[in-house]
């Protein structure tokens, strides 16, 4: 054994001390000289035109530097393509302060820049803006007939596969049938950290933007295209994020406005949105789902239909994969999947943790529960009888799929065998109703092209870098683990740098692909560096490795040694010092191995068991226990991985029980736009959560065998809770969140 094996170990966060001591710097905390402060003025109306902005009144306030609006914004890039970012959906991206048109409530209509934040905020509160209001439409219910099938405009979007078999006929002929509609409301990401950008003016049109984003490269290309900047003149940095959840995938208007002001004023500018304004951009869309399932007498699925409709803006076709998962999670020969979106006068929705799948798993997994009850089967047994050995959507085998083991291990941990099937049949010691529910899901295991660079100095200190992000998931830590283990160094000797466009190119941090993509690049880069070190080691005087081949040696415990004989070793630092080189460097860029992957369906899976107690008189629900069993390939760090899944479960509970942004359609405006009224779970809502990672080896997905866990942990949580509520009460709530009033 080596002392430098880190991969898979529950390693503590390497950035933890910086975070808890306050030395980790976030976008709004960078201190730059001569800074001005911005504050956004937001539209009170959902549709119409700005007829007058009384900018002169606030410009008269001493200390107000400028009021930017469509009336004075300089001519910028003309074409939509310049405003498209890496994950922009089809359509015409929103341009802040572009013209007098109001397209959604809370649209930014002006940016005030002042010498202090307080003054900018005050000026924003007194700026008079006149509007000509027009009729808006913000209700998805009224647009059911206006849904349409979107084109494949957005990266990662897959239109549903063609129908297979004859689902209508099979449904008619089957002995057990169900059909139902499921609904969940809109949700906003609401990371704790507000969106903020500090733009440092470096003179002569050069800027550095410290921006809250999950993709510095994405923001850089967005800004350079719009403002006609050279890449070298527009550095974008994000070293830490106070949560993202997808909200930082697209460049936000705050970044655009801060840069606009800095370039116009030739001055450093900071802009921070308010919590209320955090409800002014992307969200998980309000979604309607219709499911129609049938089962044969033996409990196998005879037919499955899943249709979804969700909202988008008037200007972009936001898409996510809501229904496709239903064609691959269970074995079924008669399947029809449908997916539509409808335009409303609101901002474009935005990927939110497990976009599409979190929504789709609500419909599918509650419907599976209903189907199991209709067929007289235990819901877990029903799933086992319909286990998919192949991905029928693409007719390929899975590269690996240990979902059955998840079912068995999760059920054993939870004690599922003690469940009684009848609703209302279980109670706790206090006499409260107890319900046990199950749900789960499937998510893509994706790898993207990514690059990294590594350099080691004569004192044995390794620095590895890539322009990826850290939104609290543990990127710093797992990349340090991979680098340390690959070069046999103690993790304390490794520094990983990220979140800077000056670093090697890396994809957005999202889609659960960072561990696989950047991890592969880090591993490959460190291997390249290892080869260089090895060559130097052979050249050392009396080197015990002089006749060895690279395959014969390993890097471990600070040494380079023969695999077959650990006594034949040199100390890594001695190699570097003997070489006389001050520094050794390597870089590499890694693409997914398409040839290897092509014959397979690459996915992670999970199952969630939830226990609720319900006070039947008062309608209160507590989720007392959750077991989430996950098969997601190799787990790089059991500690950060578990933390990430705990967060997913907590969010899933919120989705099940309380989280919803509610719009008043009269105003076309979200009304609970603050943390007092937009409820996310608090500590008192959270009880026992168990996370199981089921062992799953997979050398097809990528050399590390990693599938990513950012999204999969959230799947099925809300459905498992809703199913548990049914089991406790006999009440089938199909309209999430399940709040008190729905159980009275």
């Amino acid at each position: 054994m080596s002392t430098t094996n880190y991969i898979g170990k529950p390693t503590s966060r390497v950035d933890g001390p910086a975070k808890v001591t306050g030395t980790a710097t976030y976008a709004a905390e960078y201190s730059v000289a001569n800074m001005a402060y911005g504050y956004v003025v937001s539209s009170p109306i959902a549709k119409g035109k700005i007829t007058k902005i009384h900018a002169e009144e606030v410009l008269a306030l001493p200390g107000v530097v400028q009021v930017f609006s469509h009336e004075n914004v300089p001519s910028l890039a003309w074409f939509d393509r310049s405003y498209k970012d890496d994950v922009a959906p089809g359509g015409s991206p929103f341009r802040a302060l572009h013209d007098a048109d109001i397209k959604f409530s809370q649209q930014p209509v002006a940016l005030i820049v002042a010498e202090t934040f307080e003054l900018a905020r005050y000026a924003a509160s007194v700026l008079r803006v006149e509007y000509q209001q027009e009729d808006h439409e913000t209700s998805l219910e009224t647009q059911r007939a206006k849904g349409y099938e979107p084109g494949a405009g957005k990266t990662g979007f897959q239109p549903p596969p063609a129908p297979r078999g004859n689902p209508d006929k099979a449904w008619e002929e089957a002995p057990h049938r169900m059909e139902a509609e499921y609904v969940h409301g809109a949700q906003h990401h609401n990371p704790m950290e507000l969106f903020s950008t500090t733009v440092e003016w470096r003179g002569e049109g050069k800027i550095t933007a410290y921006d809250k984003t999950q993709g510095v490269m994405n923001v850089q290309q967005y800004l350079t295209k719009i403002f006609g900047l050279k890449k070298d003149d527009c550095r974008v940095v994000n070293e830490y994020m106070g949560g993202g959840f997808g909200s930082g995938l697209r460049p936000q208007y705050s970044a655009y406005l801060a840069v606009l002001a800095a370039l116009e004023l030739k001055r450093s500018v900071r802009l921070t949105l308010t919590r209320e304004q955090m409800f002014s951009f992307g969200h998980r869309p309000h979604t309607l789902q219709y499911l129609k399932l049938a089962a044969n007498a033996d409990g196998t699925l005879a037919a499955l239909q899943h249709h979804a409709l969700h909202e988008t803006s008037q200007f972009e076709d936001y898409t996510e994969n809501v229904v496709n998962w239903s064609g691959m999670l269970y074995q079924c020969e008669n399947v029809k999947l449908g997916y539509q979106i409808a335009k409303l006068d609101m901002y474009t929705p935005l990927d939110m943790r497990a976009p599409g799948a979190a929504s789709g798993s609500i419909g599918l997994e509650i419907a599976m529960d209903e189907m199991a009850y209709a067929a007289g089967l235990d819901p877990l047994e029903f799933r086992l009888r319909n286990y998919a050995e192949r991905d029928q959507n693409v007719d390929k085998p899975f590269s690996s799929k240990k979902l059955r083991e998840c079912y068995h291990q999760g059920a054993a941990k939870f004690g599922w065998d003690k469940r009684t099937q009848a609703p209302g049949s279980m109670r706790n010691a206090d006499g409260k109703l107890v319900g046990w529910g199950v749900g789960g899901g499937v998510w893509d295991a994706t790898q993207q092209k990514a690059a990294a660079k590594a350099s080691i100095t004569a004192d044995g200190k390794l620095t590895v870098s890539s322009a990826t992000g850290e939104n609290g998931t543990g990127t710093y830590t797992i990349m340090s683990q991979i680098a340390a283990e690959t070069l046999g160094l103690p993790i304390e000797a490794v520094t990983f740098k990220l979140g800077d466009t000056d670093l090697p190119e890396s994809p957005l941090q999202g889609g659960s692909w960072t561990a696989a993509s950047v991890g592969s690049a880090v591993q490959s880069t460190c291997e390249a560096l290892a080869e260089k070190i090895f060559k130097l080691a052979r050249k050392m005087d009396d080197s015990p490795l002089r006749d060895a081949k690279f395959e014969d040696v390993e890097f471990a415990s600070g040494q380079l040694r023969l695999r077959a004989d650990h006594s034949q070793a040199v100390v890594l630092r001695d190699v570097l010092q003997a070489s006389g080189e001050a520094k050794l460097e390597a870089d590499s860029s890694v693409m997914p191995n398409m040839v290897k992957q092509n014959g397979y369906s690459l996915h992670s899976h999970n199952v969630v068991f939830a226990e609720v107690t319900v006070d039947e008189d008062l309608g209160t629900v507590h989720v007392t226990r959750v077991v989430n069993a996950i098969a997601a390939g190799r787990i790089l760090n059991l500690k950060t991985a578990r933390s990430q899944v705990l967060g997913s479960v907590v969010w899933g509970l919120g989705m099940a029980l309380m989280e919803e942004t509610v719009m008043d359609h009269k105003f076309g405006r979200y009304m609970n736009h603050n943390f007092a009224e937009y409820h996310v779970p608090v500590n008192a809502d959270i009880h026992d959560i168990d996370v199981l990672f089921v062992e799953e080896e997979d050398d097809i997905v990528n050399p590390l065998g990693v599938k990513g866990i950012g999204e999969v942990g959230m799947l099925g949580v809300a459905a498992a809770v809703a199913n548990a509520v049914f089991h406790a009460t006999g009440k089938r709530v199909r309209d999430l969140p399940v709040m008190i009033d729905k159980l009275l």
Partner: protein
Amino acid sequence: MNPFTYSRATAVADAVRDKASHPDSEYLGGGTNLIDLMKENVARPTHLVGLNKLPLADIEALPDGGLRLGALATNADTAWHDEVKSRYPLLNQAILAGASPQLRNAATNGGNLMQRTRCYYFYDLATPCNKREPGSGCSAIGGYNRVCGILGTSESCIATHPSDMCVALAALAPTVRVSGPNGDRTIAFDDFHRLPGDQPEKDNNLEPGELITGLDLPAKGFEKNFSYLKLRDRSSYAFALISVAAGLELEGNTIKDARLALGGVAHKPWRDQEAENMLKGQPATEDTFRRVAAKVVADAKGHGSNDFKIELAKRAIVRALKQAAEGNQHAADVFLNSNP
């Protein structure tokens, strides 16, 4: 938030004088509600009179056996005060059911009474609100009104008073001590807050410039048979959808005296003395409680998204009275929120 001046008073009379000499001024205690309202531009005072140096933070026994709660004692210090825990555990429970530890550490007793009513529209300047701009209309009526009231509402306003502490106080019936430009006076707690009527901009019956200096609790604390039951959308840090403060005095199984107040239902903490009278002399049975609960909500009116509160209030009243009658409620020690 608009620019404002600030002064710090060290004597009650100075505070009252300072406030009187500044139009558009407000008293500032813990600031947990006023500062929020200022950040949202709902309140725009041009001068703040800081109160925290006034000698009003004590909690002391009264000769008549009651307890005086200083207006500047924090909610947390009040809840954890030994006399409150042993003699007024209903108040202890209600305070600890509200807000968060951080807020309770800052919020004062006087400020708790002074917090504005809660409504989505009151807090959003983009929408009309009679309370914020008299005459502009009520957006909650016909709009999204999950948190709004079902009792004592008017065509002008259906907002609810958000306090938990005040619901327990409504049941315990202290007197509110105030000082103002015209001297000192006391106000019965039930007369302190107002129903909206056609003047929803007024939350209470204080005269201009009057300052709360304390609350005098009567000796009777219902420490044996009480319950504070709060129902909300999550287990902590959420306003009550419905809350019930119940206190009973029992002789055997017969109710000798009773107190019953509700939160989350009205523009003021809703004490129902007719319901209390109905309870007196009756056996403490579920049947009694059901009849009383039905009476409390007999005139309740839902507004769409809060219709459920009528049924929920009934059930909560029955449960709270049952819990009170059982007499096994205790002052909370650490966490009271999350018994699943």
